[in-house]
């Protein structure tokens, strides 16, 4: 009997993974532990190994397919062995066939088909009113948008996501006038959003003459080809200018996948799913800068400790005294933690990632610094594990090194607070003699989930943090600060 290969669950929050690339073809001999394919979660890439010796009998998904974790993705067995009927993929047969079938299509189509699968499964499994009741533009539920060819074409040109349109045609069909009213109502996406829509829909706009179908019609193959080529010129549409055609000024398009797709979802989820409030203040940075100078002068390994490391240290030490901000909100459960697992935002070529420094409240500046460096490197080279990317209780993001004076960080759900570290700028203050003097001052922007964190405790945390940074060497003593 063939052995199933499952999509592994990589970390608590991972629901599905994208198959980046199959390393083995059907019929290839494999040994246990040999890499079958490379997959990507929203946070990391990793490899799926063969669970047994034998032959890769069947691959159930294609490159680019998104597959729920613990779903069968392949079978390994003896040569010539066939996959028994009962071993076909779980769930409704028709739906699976649909997914498997569409996997053979070029990348653009395959990806969108895979994307529809969980929805389709949900619609079939839950006979709730939402999927059964005819809706505008979705007469039969199941997530299909009913839209006239004309309206679809114009929506794509205008960059309006058809999902946002309400159908007024027969049976709720979206027709041209629905687009017109959306345009008139100003619910039109911006041009960059239009690019995004075109990319997300997997149907970048292609001039009719570029089509290879009958009469120059653009076929799905043309679209897939354009996507597969890593984006195509936006060669039509009102916004196009002659200069855009010049070398180096082309507009490029990309399909959202993997990390970027997940970031997009998480960010939107964050902003839409919580009540974010950002408080801004600044802290006297003279002590911090002085200490940093000393470290620099001391040479390695001290010289590698950055300002940011020192801020992380300060946060980790202050936070246990403000437990109301060191927590998570999941559903209706609010957790507050004694330990500080500090998320730190890392800029990587694939996008923003937030690895977690475990037990930061127990670490020295040097330990925090080396752990932060290790995690950042792992993020950049893709070796970070899903578990290193999860479990944070509070996050810090730093745009100060890029000269940002003030900003509004976006919460990293389910966390309820995030600190933004801004640039160090001179700030006029009243000296003891009543004269105004300028001191080095670091901007701090704290975003809280106002559903569970009130303004005052947040302000108190900022105040305490500012005080700790302002007298940094005192903080280094390790003495417990007195709660105010």
């Amino acid at each position, binding site marked *: 009997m063939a052995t199933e290969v499952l999509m592994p669950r990589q970390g608590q929050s991972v629901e599905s993974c994208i198959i980046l690339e199959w390393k083995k073809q059907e019929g290839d001999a494999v040994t246990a532990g040999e890499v079958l394919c490379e997959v990507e979660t929203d946070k990391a890439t990793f490899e799926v190994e063969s669970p047994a010796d034998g032959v890769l009998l069947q691959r159930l998904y294609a490159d680019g397919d998104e597959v729920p974790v613990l779903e069968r993705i392949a079978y390994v067995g003896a040569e010539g062995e066939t996959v028994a009927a009962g071993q076909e993929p779980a769930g409704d047969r028709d739906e699976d066939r649909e997914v498997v079938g569409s996997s053979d299509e070029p990348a653009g189509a395959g990806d969108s088909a895979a994307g529809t699968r969980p929805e389709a499964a949900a619609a079939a499994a839950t006979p709730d009113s939402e999927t059964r009741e005819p809706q505008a533009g979705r007469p039969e539920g199941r997530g299909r948008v009913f839209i006239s*060819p004309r309206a679809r074409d114009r929506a794509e040109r205008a960059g309006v996501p058809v999902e946002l349109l309400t159908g007024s045609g027969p049976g709720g069909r979206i027709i*041209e006038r629905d687009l017109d009213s959306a345009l008139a109502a100003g619910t039109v996406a911006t041009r960059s959003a239009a690019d995004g829509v075109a990319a997300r829909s997997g149907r970048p706009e292609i001039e009719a003459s570029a089509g290879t179908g009958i009469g120059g019609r653009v076929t799905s193959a043309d679209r897939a080809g354009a996507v597969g080529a890593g984006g195509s010129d936006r060669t039509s549409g009102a916004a196009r200018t002659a200069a855009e055609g010049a070398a180096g000024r082309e507009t490029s398009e990309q399909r959202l996948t993997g990390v970027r797709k997940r970031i997009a979802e998480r960010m939107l989820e964050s902003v839409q799913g919580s009540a974010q409030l950002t408080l801004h203040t600044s802290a006297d940075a003279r002590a911090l800068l002085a200490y940093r100078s000393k470290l620099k002068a001391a040479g390695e390994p001290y010289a590698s400790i950055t300002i940011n490391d020192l801020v992380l240290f300060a946060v980790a030490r202050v936070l246990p005294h403000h437990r109301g901000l060191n927590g998570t909100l999941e559903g209706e459960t609010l957790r507050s933690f004694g330990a500080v697992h500090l998320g730190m935002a890392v800029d990587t070529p694939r996008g923003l990632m937030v690895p977690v420094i475990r037990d930061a409240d127990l670490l020295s500046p040097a330990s925090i610094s080396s752990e932060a460096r290790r995690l950042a490197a792992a993020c950049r080279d893709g070796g970070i594990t899903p578990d290193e990317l999860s479990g944070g209780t509070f996050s810090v993001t730093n745009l100060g090194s890029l000269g940002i004076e003030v900003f509004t960080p976006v919460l990293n759900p389910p966390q309820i607070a995030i600190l933004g570290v801004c640039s160090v700028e001179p700030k006029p203050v009243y000296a003891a003699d009543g004269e105004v003097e300028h001191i080095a001052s670091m901007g701090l922007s704290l975003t809280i989930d106002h559903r569970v964190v009130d303004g005052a405790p947040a302000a108190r945390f900022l105040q305490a943090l500012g005080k700790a940074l302002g007298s940094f060497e005192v903080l280094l003593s390790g003495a417990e600060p007195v709660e105010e």
Partner: protein
Amino acid sequence: MPRSLTVDPKVVRKPGVVTCPEIPINVYKSDPKHERKRFGDELLRRVYYDMYTIREFETMLNEIKTQGEYRGIAYDHKGPAHLSIGQESTAVGMCLPLGVEDFIFGSHRSHGEILAKCYSAIMKLSDEALEATMKRYLGGDTLAVVEREQYEDIRDLAENFVLYGTLAEIFGRNAGFNRGLGGSMHAFFAPFGSMPNNAIVGGSADITAGAALFKRINRKPGICVASIGDASSGCGPVWEAIMLSAMEQYRTLWPEDVGGAPPVLFNFINNFYGMGGQTAGETMGFQVLARLGAGVNPEAMHAERVDGYSPLAVADAMERKREILQAGKGPVLLDTITYRISGHSPSDASTYRTKDEVELWQQNDSLASYRAYLLDNGIAGASTLEAMEQRVVEKVTQACRLAVALEVSPRPRPEVIEQTMFSNEPADRLEDREPEVLISRDENPRVQQIARKSRSAYDQNGRELSKMKVVAYRDALFEALLYRFYEDPTMAAWGEENRDWGGAFAVYRGLTEALPYHRLFNASISEGAIVGSGVGYALSGGRAVVELMYCDFMGRAGDEIFNQASKWQSMSAGVLQMPLVVRVSVGSKYGAQHSQDWTSIVAHIPGLKVMFPATPYDAKGMLNLALRGSDPVIFFESQRLYDIGEMFVEGGVPESYYEVPEGLPDVKRSGTDLTIVTIGATLYRALEAADELAERWGLSAEVIDARFINPLDLDPIVESVRKTGKIVLASDACERGSFLHTVASNISQLAFDYLDGPPAVVGSRNWITPAFEMEDTFFPQKEWIVDTIHERVLPLEGHKPSTVQTGGDIARRYRRGV
């Protein structure tokens, strides 16, 4: 109903009896001495040669069909071959006295008649004429094949040409007489007077009558023979052809110098069977077919039964009847008895007759008897006859060899069919002579009346004028007809009530004064023969305009429209042209059998041009187009529109000549939001709907009148749909099978990416037409169009439909079949 003839009660109520002339049966007595003097020995021998040629030709086909081989030449002929073994004497006897200018039209069993008529013509034509004809025909393609073979002289070559041209046609080859597009049952060779043979039983009868009308009306020499089977006497159109040919007006009302009745001879080749049905004693009751003449006119059609087993008896009868016909005293009916030894077709097992019966006739075999006659009377010696027979076998073998070989005789290119569906050769006049008219155009009372009317529906201030004061649709049609009558001397028009009445809808009013009887006359109530004679007239070289008073009567002319007018141009490989206009008036008010729009039925038939103007401008411009063309046109008119004026073209209907471009739909009102396409009178309801859409919803509808059904340029409609994204199509045709569904389907394909909704078709209900007062439940109304837009294309805010036009109701109607 001519005013010049009085129906006098004193006369018609007088008692009396009808007496009929005696109808002779087999009166010919062979007198060899007299015959040698009358025909000459050479011709008598020639009769044997021709008969033997037919026998060998048919035997060859029989062997090919039943054994797949003739004299070592193997061939599998999958098509038909209705053979006439046994009937050779009737064919040769019939053609012997006929001139080249005489026409014979035959049946599915006419191979022998083609050969006999062509051989007869070869005897009568000069070498130069023969050579010129062969060189010209199909660009010399047929000649080229036989010319490469040995031949003695031009006559010998001409015989080879006829044998090969006929056989290549039967085998479906490019060098066949009709490029293989006619085949066994339709082959013919017009230059020698062998005219189209017809696979529809009796189909040749009314076509022959039309050809005879052509000869008479245009003062051409020659007679026309319909060589049709005995069983076709049961066909309505055959009777209609006889009735049309026997109208008394030819002798009483037509100008005497025209020459009397059309010279048509209905030669019933009576082999006693219609396929397997025995006409003598089983399927007919006349006992002697010639009896039928007694029911037709006082001369009993000069009917006679002739012994077709004697070629000379047939020749004698033909010669005598030809004189009667040339004197304008036709029509003539011959009951030429014969017998086919071969089956109806090679698949015929002859279950309907006994072997004994066949043997009886074989003992009387005309070929053997005539051979004996020649020998017994010293007209030919055995060696002469054997040499003759040998020569025939060689010729038939050569024809077979050439026609079978694909490298010598390739099949036609399929494009030839497309190219010959229409001839597309417009001509101002089909003959160059002065048209026969009675008065000048200026003197015409109708012309004078029209001159007092407004060319437009509106006065100078844009106010609508009274219908009495405008040049109406019917006037526009009249102007087109009058113009062409004064241009084309061959143009003639007939139908029911066409003359004194002026046509049931007064289109022809004013033509009676203008035209002599033979250019405009009333026909018997014979729709089949009216159209069929138009077909015969047109393919003989004249321009015919025939009228069906109501569209609903088209069923009566079904074969003539569906099989004859439509097909002969391509079945002849373009040898024939069909300058025939069938005017068809679409009715209303008169219930279920007088109100149907059957445009969709003819749209389905390949080979017809179909037009349906809805405005006076288009009526004149499109009829002008049709009347100058060379193709068959079914020209629909609407009884709802005859009295309307021109509302669209500035300045109204031009007085001068103009044509509407063929196939081009016309935008009657420009718009941007949705497209409404109509055919026929529905245009005006669509305009009402457009008005309402504008007034209530601020929508701008583009209204397009298709005008043409075939050919039809879809581009303007596609262009409109690209602009508007929405299209509704409406006409009075019943919805199921409406041609508009074809247009809608094509628009879906040609403009799919531009559509904002499905093309929606609004047609009449799939019902009978009710009484006039209930017609709004049957014909598409303004409300139907608006409601259809609302339900299926573009929901209209606040609109409450008054009719049911939903998708669900389409499904319901289809489930119920209504």
